[in-house]
Structures are given as C-alpha cells and as structure tokens.
C-alpha cells in the first residue's frame, strides 16, 4: 500500500444557501480544491451525501457533481453513511490511491438540508434511523440522543450543566470562523435555559442541519511533495460499525464502533494519544461528544464531560476539539461534515488556521460518526 497525502482543500460557507443547489455548492468546493492543489483534473471523484434523495429529490448525484465541477468523464460514485458519509468517502478515496488504482482522487461532500423545512425535513431525516424499530415509533435522531443523554446523566450522576462546555467551546471557535453558520457566543448558564427539542437535548445542544460543500484532493505522498509546498499526510485510518438501532446495543453508553475505529487508526499511524494536537469529532449532540471522547480513550468512562469543563478542549487546551466550531457552530451539512473535518484539520496542520490556529499543530485526528455511533471512520493526519 502506498502512503497518501492531501494536496488541495476547498469549502463553501456553511448555512442556508437558498439561492444555490447541490450542484452549485459542489462545483464551488471542487474548483476551490483543484485551484488549491494547482491541478485541473483528477482520476476519480467520490461524492459524500446523506439526504440528496430524500431532501433534495436527487440521487445519482456523482455524475451531476462531476459535470458541474468540470470533471465530466471521470470515474465517480457516491457514498452514504448518514453523518459519517464524509468519513466514508475519505476512506474510499484513501484506499483508491493507496492501492494504486488511481493517482489522484477528489473527495467531495455536499448537502442541501434547506431544500426542506419544518416537520417535512424532520421526517426526511428519519430515514437514517432503523425504519421498522425506531422511525415508525416517531423517533428522531435528537430524541434518540436524548435517550442516551438522560441515561448517561442518571447512571453517572451528571447534571445537565456539565455538558454546556461543549457548546460554549464550539461557538467560541465558530465565532472566529468566517465559514461557520452560527457565529454567536453561548454564555455560561444559557445552555440550561434553551428551548427543548427532546429533553434533555435542547436547541443549544443539537447541531443545526445546514447546506454546504467541502472537498479534499488526494494523491500519493511521494507525488504530493513535488506538487504542493505543504502536503498533509494521512498516516492512519480505521473504520467500524455498530448496531443501527440504539436499543440493540449491549452496552448503551459505549460507542464500540468509535472505539474500534480509533484503535485501528492509532495503531496504523503508530501514534499515541498524547501526540495528537487536535481532534475534530462528531459533536452532533453534546452527549455524542462526551461518549466519543470516552470511547476514543481520551477520558475515562463516564467522564468525557469533564474535558469540556476544565478547559482541556479549548484552542489552547490539552486536547482542542471542534476547532472551527464543530457541527454545533460551524453547522452540520450532514453528508459533507466529514469532509469539512478534513479541510479544517489540513488548515490547522498547514498553520493556516488564522484566529482558530492550534499552536504548533503537527498531528490531528478526525472522526466521522454516523447516527449515534452506528458507523465510525477515524483518520490521523500529519504534517
């Protein structure tokens, strides 16, 4: 297997792009990434998207994106894994280049959540749950996250306020990111008073669905050095799955897919947790952030929330997370989210993070989690 590196990145602002469609957003991000890499084409285009068919009435998205991105004729297909679609596409791209099947691959995530609003979007979004055992009961992803969160609070004796640090941190970072959807700050204490979506999950807890597109260009580490001044190497990757339905888990408060994907990625990268300078995790809900930190081995079981309370996760902390606002503040363009994570990690490792720069960032971990841990893709990136 050949070593793989990222040589170009592109992203659109995350938000509600009423005037732009899937094809427009995708074309913008693709062109930005090609320009960044200084090339005009790639051999393979892998598109990450979660709700094109259900929210935007558009499946068979890959050739449409290829056409509008100026890549007509390339090998292309789409990958879907709900919130982890971006991580899945990145893994597919890495495998394509590492195996020698292609020399260059463009991994592009795109979502257009605002093509539906209100209860119609809530319903469209439930297709990523277990249709027979969850969605038919009127379950939603925030409601299932709430079931996890209440159980966590009761089993570990944790108050609601313990989770506010995740949202405060995300918005503190997102406020400085021009591409973030909600750049307001959340004041301490406001978290506990926010309107409930499904208690204890509130408006200040769950990440907002959004529109956006992000892209990265992959090639071999060997070629990368000749093409761009600052290639970022992907030095390890891991992937795993767990039950789709929450109720099928043997251990409700342990994300096994996250644990396994992290272990694989660290092992393949030959990196210890202490060497990681920042983590982009999937903070769709604060409980998912806490459980991900625990399953990834950064906090003991039942204590992931502590990292959000003691300042560890801030830009200057021991383990910065959601450094450009995470899903919570940057916004959650669902299928594109995992690719945004890769773009943001590359900015950090290039030292191009601007006001969001983590000091001396050398190694980053990005973790793309589908649903509440049903799929997980973890990658380790290095300068």
């Amino acid at each position: 297997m050949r070593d793989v590196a990222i040589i170009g990145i592109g992203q659109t602002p995350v938000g509600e792009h009423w005037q732009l469609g899937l094809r427009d957003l995708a074309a913008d991000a693709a062109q930005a990434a090609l320009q960044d890499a200084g090339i005009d084409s790639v051999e393979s285009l892998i598109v990450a998207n979660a709700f094109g068919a259900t929210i935007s009435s558009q499946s068979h998205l890959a050739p449409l994106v290829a056409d509008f991105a100026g890549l007509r004729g390339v090998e292309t297909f789409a990958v879907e894994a709900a919130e982890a679609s971006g991580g899945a596409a990145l893994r597919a791209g890495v495998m394509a280049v590492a195996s020698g099947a292609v020399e260059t691959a463009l991994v592009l995530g795109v979502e257009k959540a605002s093509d539906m609003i209100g209860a119609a979007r809530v319903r469209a979004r439930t297709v990523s749950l277990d249709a027979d055992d969850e969605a038919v009961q009127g379950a939603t992803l925030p409601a299932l996250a709430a079931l996890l969160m209440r159980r966590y609070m009761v089993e570990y004796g944790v108050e609601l306020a313990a989770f506010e640090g995740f949202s405060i941190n995300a918005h503190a970072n997102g406020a400085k990111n021009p591409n973030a959807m909600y750049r307001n700050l959340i004041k301490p204490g406001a978290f506990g008073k926010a309107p409930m979506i499904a208690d204890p999950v509130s408006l200040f807890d769950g990440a907002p669905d959004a529109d956006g597109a992000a892209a990265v260009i992959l090639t071999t580490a060997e070629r990368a050095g000749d093409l761009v001044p600052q290639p970022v190497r992907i030095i390890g990757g891991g992937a795993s799955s767990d039950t789709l339905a929450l109720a099928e888990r043997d251990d409700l408060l342990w994300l096994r897919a996250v644990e396994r994907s992290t272990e694989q990625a660290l092992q393949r990268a030959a990196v210890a947790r202490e060497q990681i300078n920042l983590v982009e995790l999937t903070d769709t809900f604060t409980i998912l952030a806490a459980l991900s930190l625990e399953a990834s081995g950064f906090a003991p079981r039942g204590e992931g929330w502590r990292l959000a309370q003691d300042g560890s996760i801030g830009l200057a902390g021991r383990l910065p997370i959601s450094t450009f606002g995470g899903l919570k503040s940057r916004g959650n363009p669902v299928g594109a989210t995992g690719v945004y994570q890769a773009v943001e990690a590359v900015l950090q490792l290039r030292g191009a993070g601007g006001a969001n720069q983590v000091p001396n960032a050398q190694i980053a971990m990005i973790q793309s989690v589908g649903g509440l841990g049903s799929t997980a893709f973890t990658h380790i990136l290095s300068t």
Partner: protein
Amino acid sequence: MSETRRPAALPHERQAFAGTGEIVSFTTVREAPEGYEDQAPYVLALVRLDEGQMITAQITDLEDLPAIGDRVEMVTRKLTTEGPRGMIVYGYKFRKPVT
C-alpha cells in the same frame, strides 16, 4: 479478529414476549416528524422487556411524566397514518400497567 462473522442464530431468532418491562430512559419529543405532529409532544422511551431485549417505543396514556425504572405493559395503538387516504399504521406502545 474483527467481528465480521457471528453465529447466525444470535439476535435474529423469533422470540415471544410477555409484553411487560421497565423504562430504561425516556424523552419528550417536541419537534416531531410529519405524520406524528398531531401527537406531539409525546414520550419516547427505551423499554427493557422482562425477557431482556430492549426496544424503542412511545409511552402512552400518561397523566404525568414517567420515571426511569417504571414498570410498563404493551398495548396496541395507532402509530401514524400514511398517504392521502389516511391508512392507519398500528403498532405497539407501552403504558403504565392497568390493574
């Protein structure tokens, strides 16, 4: 080794349940999907059946919020309606035992 191969019988065999169990966790859904809006707010829960299996279901016929550990029993209820002719989808919900 990863767990890509498992004994075929494990979780997918047919089982009969008494229809009783207890609440493991619950929430009140306020942002409901289309087709469920007229029921909102409704209580969704994880219920551990007495036979050990856990399932996701609504708790119905409630006067007050339930609590974790509450005993519940299964009842058949309308879950939603589908299509322009309003075909009713029936299924299971749970309620506090009526004795």
